[in-house]
């Protein structure tokens, strides 16, 4: 990892998630948490200690976990269903489809340790298909916050949102990108950095890497806009169309397979909505099961180090008219 970021400034966004959930839980007795023996990895011990009967740990049973969440919502509760993202979305996908999306239940699906966060544990534990799977379902917004501040804002938003959603969190440390008073708006991208030659679109752990890449590009005289696109569905069409029109090239960066995720969603908008198509490059996991390595190692390996992103931009700009 060659990003010039000091380790001390990195934050595990799970801490912001549970701190916010505990605050919301204190104010609203209907907020409950459901998990699959993941009290530790979801960092729910504090919530459990404060509200013992409102932490429903169903054991290692993800299908039941999501169904229980839907039933709790039917009974007027606001369940945050928390589990490692690969098992929440992979094992219980049909429950997410039928019990949450199709039934339109007020279930907050919280995928912990998403993307490549479990690095060395291998591809069974990687959740690099979840954008694609959940994005294909109606009624369930798909959201990947980029830092601890946006994570807290997203959790607060989710508690007040009447409907299901999928919140994709990581455990990999990221620095602050937003100001403390940031409020999350569904389907609204945030311009993290202004620029005119190219737009980098990222979310989750990739946003700060994109910001660092923009620094590297700036040193070479390339002005890169950085859009934080936390909401993958509903996607911010207007921001993408503006980016295409105003910067003429787009590079997407995501901790996800390039098949069906953020890059695909952006490309769909470019194809469907832009009067003039623009060159695009989708960075992500290139349709393989990842080799052994930490999340940060793998992101670098797949061309998403800040330098790798910058190099992709330089290559792409050769195709720009």
């Amino acid at each position: 990892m060659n990003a010039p970021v000091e380790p001390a400034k990195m934050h595990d966004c799970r801490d912001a998630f549970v701190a916010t959930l505990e605050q919301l839980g204190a104010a609203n007795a209907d907020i409950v948490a459901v998990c699959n023996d993941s009290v530790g990895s979801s960092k729910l011990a504090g919530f459990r200690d404060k509200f013992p009967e409102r932490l429903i740990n169903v054991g290692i049973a993800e299908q039941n976990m999501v169904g229980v969440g839907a039933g709790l919502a039917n009974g007027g509760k606001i369940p945050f269903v928390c589990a490692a993202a690969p098992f929440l979305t992979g094992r219980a996908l049909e429950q997410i489809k039928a019990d949450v999306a199709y039934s339109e239940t007020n279930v907050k699906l919280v995928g912990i340790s998403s993307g490549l966060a479990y690095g060395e544990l291998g591809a069974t534990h990687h959740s690099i298909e979840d954008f694609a799977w959940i994005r294909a379902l109606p009624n369930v917004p798909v959201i990947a916050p980029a830092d601890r501040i946006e994570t807290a804002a997203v959790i607060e938003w989710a508690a007040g949102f009447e409907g299901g959603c999928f919140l994709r969190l990581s455990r990999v440390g990221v620095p602050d990108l937003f100001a403390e008073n940031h409020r999350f708006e569904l389907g609204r991208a945030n311009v993290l950095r202004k620029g005119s030659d190219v737009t980098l679109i990222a979310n989750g752990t990739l946003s700060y890497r994109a910001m660092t890449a923009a620094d590297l590009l700036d040193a070479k005289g390339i002005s890169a806009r950085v859009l934080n696109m936390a909401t993958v569905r509903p996607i911010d069409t207007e921001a993408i169309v503006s980016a295409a029109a105003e910067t003429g090239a787009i590079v997407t960066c995501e901790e996800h397979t390039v098949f069906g995720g953020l890059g695909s969603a952006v490309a769909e908008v470019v194809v469907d909505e832009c009067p003039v198509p623009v060159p695009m490059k989708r960075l992500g996991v290139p349709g393989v099961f990842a080799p052994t390595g930490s999340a940060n190692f793998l992101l670098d390996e797949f061309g998403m180090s800040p330098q790798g992103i910058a190099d992709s931009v330089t290559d792409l700009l050769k195709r720009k008219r």
Partner: protein
Amino acid sequence: MNTHDLRVIANRVRRRDLQAVFEAGAGHIGGELSVTDLLTALYFKIMSVDPANPRAPERDRLVLSKGHTALALYVVLAEKGFIPKDEIATFLKPHSRLNGHPNRTKVPGVETNTGPLGHGLPVGVGMATAAKLNRANWRTFVITGDGEMQEGSNWEAIMSAAQLKLDNLTLIIDHNRLQQGARLADTNDLAPLAPKLAAFGWDVQEIDGHNMDQICAVLDAGQIVTGKPKCIVAHTNKGHGVSFMSDNVAWHHKVPNEEQYNQAMTELKEAAP
């Protein structure tokens, strides 16, 4: 309502169901005829529900996990006043609210969308847990098919319900011994079901699922065992009430021709209490 009147309603539901399957040219007549008595007892004797306020927070909940028998539920909901009776004629027609599996966002009285098997019981566990958290007295009922109990998600939920001591949850297994393609015994034989549920910590009772007196007695709130979820193994017949359909695997979702329809309707009319 006394059990004679319940039998009258159940007979009427069977006839309307049969007519709708015949007219729509589709349906799951076998499983609909096996579950009709259970649904009738629940909606007209046991459950506290209000068609004028289908989302009343304190209502009892029913989840028809064997969602492919939605038509029987629709007819019962129409009898109860949740939807207009003449709407049954739209079953499976383009843009009808009444598609092949129940949809809570479209049909008042439906609690969750079912269809893929093994979904209803986990949702029921969540409902019953919500009632416990709310210190509320409403009850949750889930009806599964017996073949459906082959889905592993049911057993995840069975473990949870016992662990959570959900005595406000009742699982009714419509044990008609037949699944879509064959007898359970020839596929993945779960019978006997009762000792399996008992081993998981449930209070289990077995009844004749077509005997209205037994159905009403076993579902009475006075039968609740504190701290234990209840399972009722309802011994039923697929196609019950029509001689040539009863206990015949061919009638999972077969549609009667006109001659069969007339014969079936005649048998049901003659059996009317």
